[in-house]
């Protein structure tokens, strides 16, 4: 089951690995220019006095960010984990996951598996293999980025703050993996799981617009907004996501055990 599932995912694994490598190379290559860009946005105090208040606030914030961007560690966390790599993680999880069950049903190959193995064995075999791939690539590119920065001569360390950020991303990507896996179990074709997955990815940030439900949007958690600004681990949110993930996976198993083919 493991090898077969890996073979099915091989092309997508290569594409995403190449994409992440290119993104990392681009980030490191453009590092000096980012510094320069922010420094050019700083203006003198005489010019500042003639500007309206709201613009002064923006520039003050920019100046603050510019100062922080001089720190390689901050640059790495904000630009790799919190932006480029971090932002692609839900999409990465979706593309790797949506076919796991839906393609077997869509193509009619599920009968081959159902005839040979009991349903829990099929579910766990495919689920764990897919998770191994998703979490494996996430871990690899979480750790490669600081190493690549170090090798490029930047002063980056594996600080506790960085580890906390990586742990939150792994919990976050596990949550998205379980959700998209459930879609793959629920639907009998490959279009619906990817379509619903994209709606979820695009729709979740809109929840932040409403104060009462903005906690439902896991992006600030996955992108480590609180970790970067305060250096603290969001324990309650982590626990909640892990519990929800476990419930979703259990639901997926129960649906798969009862589903008609």
């Amino acid at each position: 089951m493991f090898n077969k599932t890996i073979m099915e995912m091989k092309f997508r694994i290569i594409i995403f690995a190449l994409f992440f490598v290119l993104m990392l190379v681009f980030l490191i290559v453009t590092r000096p220019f980012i510094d320069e860009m922010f420094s050019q946005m700083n203006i003198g105090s005489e010019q500042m006095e003639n500007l309206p208040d709201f613009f002064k606030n923006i520039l003050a914030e920019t100046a603050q960010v510019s100062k922080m961007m001089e720190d390689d560690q901050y640059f790495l966390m904000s630009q790799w984990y919190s932006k480029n790599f971090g932002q692609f993680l839900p999409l990465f999880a979706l593309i790797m996951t949506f076919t796991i069950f839906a393609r077997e049903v869509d193509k009619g190959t599920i009968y081959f598996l159902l005839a040979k193995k009991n349903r829990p064995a099929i579910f766990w075999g495919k689920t764990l293999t897919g998770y191994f791939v998703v979490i494996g690539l996430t871990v690899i590119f979480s750790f490669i980025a600081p190493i690549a920065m170090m090798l490029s001569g930047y002063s980056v360390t594996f600080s506790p703050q960085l580890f906390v950020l990586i742990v939150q991303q792994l919990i976050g990507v596990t949550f998205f993996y379980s959700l998209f896996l459930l879609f793959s179990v629920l639907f009998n074709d490959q279009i619906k799981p990817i379509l619903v997955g994209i709606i979820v990815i695009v729709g979740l940030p809109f929840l932040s617009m409403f104060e009462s439900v903005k906690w439902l949007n896991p992006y600030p958690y996955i992108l480590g907004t609180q970790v970067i600004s305060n250096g603290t681990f969001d324990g309650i949110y982590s626990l909640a996501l892990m519990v929800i993930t476990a419930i979703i996976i259990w639901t997926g198993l129960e649906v798969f055990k009862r589903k008609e083919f």
Partner: protein
Amino acid sequence: MERIKANATEKKALLIQGLDKTYRSGVHAVKGVDFTVEEGEVHALLGPNGAGKTTTIKSILGFINYKGDIKVFQEDIDSVRANVAFVPEDKSFYEFMTPEVAIKVCKRIIDQFDPNTAFEFMRRFNLPMKKKIKGFSHGMKTALYLSLCLAQKSSLYIFDEPTWGLDPIRRDDVLEIIRNLVIDGKTVLYTSHIISEVEKITDRISIMFDGKILFSGYTDDIKANYRIYYLPLDFKLPQELEYLSAKRDKEKLIVLTGDETAIETLRGEADTQEVIPNLEIFFQTLLRGKNYV
């Protein structure tokens, strides 16, 4: 085909009681079906499209939920799944694989899978071992699926339309292989639309129509015990006798019966033509006349 008495043990490979299945769409596909498959026999499940054959097979293998009781070797299917090999109606396999890769994958997934047997069957079917399955014809896909299924060392083989898409030579090969399985002590449950091929290899048949079993019995007994009578159109059938089917066409009243008294009675009538049915005629007469009994 002569029945091999030595193989006809009392042990049941498959026992189905009160199988009933209604799909969510409201289609009542199987309506309280009972039948058994004895160990060491080829049992053919026959019927027109929509009779409920595939639904019955899906129920046996646990692919769908159903009402009723199904035991495979006296156990639930999940307890004996490793001992059951299956070729579905839809012979879709992983198209990105070559037959060589498929064998390696099956070796990892299937318990008691013999790669050498799979290679032998694929060679026999002249399958290109390094060509991706995506480029295979229907017949080649069927041959591939059969090769992989036959390489699984099982006690019960379930084939849903196993010769679909095969050329006549390969079809005969497959029928011979299926027959040999029984000689080796295996049990086969088999569905097909091609009655002539069924007659060549089956010990027993069950004929389904509209979700019910209309007839279940040994193929040898059909010729021995059943008769078809072509009677004048205005002939009045005695109501106290038993008939399997009766139909009035444009010129004749056609009656199928296995009841000895009915046979004696109809044989003595004037203008009666008696026919000893082969399986094809038996099947057609049974289905065409069932509404008029």
